[in-house]
């Protein structure tokens, strides 16, 4: 067993994990943050994306022991301090960027990572950045729209609904 300590959404957490324990399992099963979803467990779908030391990673493809000492941020840490939705989350709601919501935690975390490195992405840049996030419901248009809107851009001209 390995002892791990990390900061998750600003709070110090620690635990004991096996070598093989995935970061996604640690978050969901050990510290009960089930907002991070596991859609495929094969690194394809991106539902499990969280930030580790500020970078988007697929938590189903990182060992929990590798995150020892890291700052982790999950979808549970995205809302504003007063509990209201963050700009990106609100934009997903306003633009119907989700239907079943399964992919949404990963979409929001990927969107946040994108907007940090590229605050005003073009539509094409958003679509390209989301290549590792799969959504089986929306057809992506409204997700792209929500992310463009969250970046403060006019989305009235963006494709099909």
């Amino acid at each position: 067993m390995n002892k791990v300590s990390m900061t998750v959404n600003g709070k110090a957490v620690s635990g004991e994990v096996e070598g093989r324990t995935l970061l996604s399992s640690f978050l969901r099963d050990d510290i009960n943050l089930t907002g991070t979803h596991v859609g495929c467990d094969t690194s394809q779908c991106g539902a499990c994306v969280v930030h580790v030391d500020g970078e988007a990673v697929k938590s189903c493809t990182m060992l929990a022991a590798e995150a020892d000492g890291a700052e982790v941020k999950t979808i549970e840490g995205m809302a504003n301090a007063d509990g209201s939705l963050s700009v990106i989350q609100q934009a997903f709601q306003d633009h119907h960027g989700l239907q079943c919501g399964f992919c949404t935690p990963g979409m929001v975390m990927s969107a946040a990572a994108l907007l940090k490195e590229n605050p005003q992405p073009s539509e094409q840049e958003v679509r390209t950045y989301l290549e590792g996030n799969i959504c089986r419901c929306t057809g992506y248009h409204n997700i792209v729209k929500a992310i463009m809107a969250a970046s403060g851009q006019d989305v009235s001209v963006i494709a099909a609904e």
Partner: protein
Amino acid sequence: MYNFEFEKPGSVADAVAALGAEDAQALGGGQTLIPTLKQRLNQPSKLVSLSGIADMKGVSASGGMITIGGATTHATVAAEASAYPALAATAAHIGDPAVRNRGTIGGSLANNDPAACYPAALLGSGGSVKTDNRDIDADEYFQGMFSTALEEGEIITGVTFNIPEKANYQKFVQPASRFALVGVFVAKHADGVRVAITGASEDGVFRWSEAETALSSNFSAAALDGISVSADGMITDLHGTGAYRAHLLGILTKRAVAAAA
């Protein structure tokens, strides 16, 4: 996944020592190894993470060469290899953004997947793989699908690429895996052209010598007219036949020559 011990040493020497344990294996970014372990295709007793070794990270360029630490992520290469733009562009199209934040150049080259991008970049550029105890020339390093000159327990500490006058990588993406269905790296050096092909051959990455000869005397897409590769020995799978891949690599080589900068 079967269980294993986990160790994260802070130096190359400690990593080499940890890898001395029976059935221990090095862990780069895990973007291939972890999925492999999930399928129980492999059962190491211990994984030795290389991600805590500061000496194995970073990008530096001098004297017509660029050296990347073995534990450097694709995202870092994409952002920092400005001395070799074709290499930065290659790194920027591996996998997806989250994969690029974890996956490392050393991990990719140690695995030598027959459809990976870095093997084509290294073999096309020419250069060497630096390990904990020697330098291996790029032309000696790749020994067939998933097979390399590395010994058991040997660690890639760095990778050096010769920076050519012009280069370009063309990747025809297999959209489900985001690997190359076929990828072609063309590099025009002062002393000749190198063309490396990934994703196509059952022997893994290879140099297309006929194209190299033609391009060395005339660096233009037209120089490739009438030259082709036989479909024998090309990979056939549900994504494409060997004949399709053989055709595609010719097209991509022309595109790479036209786009080389």
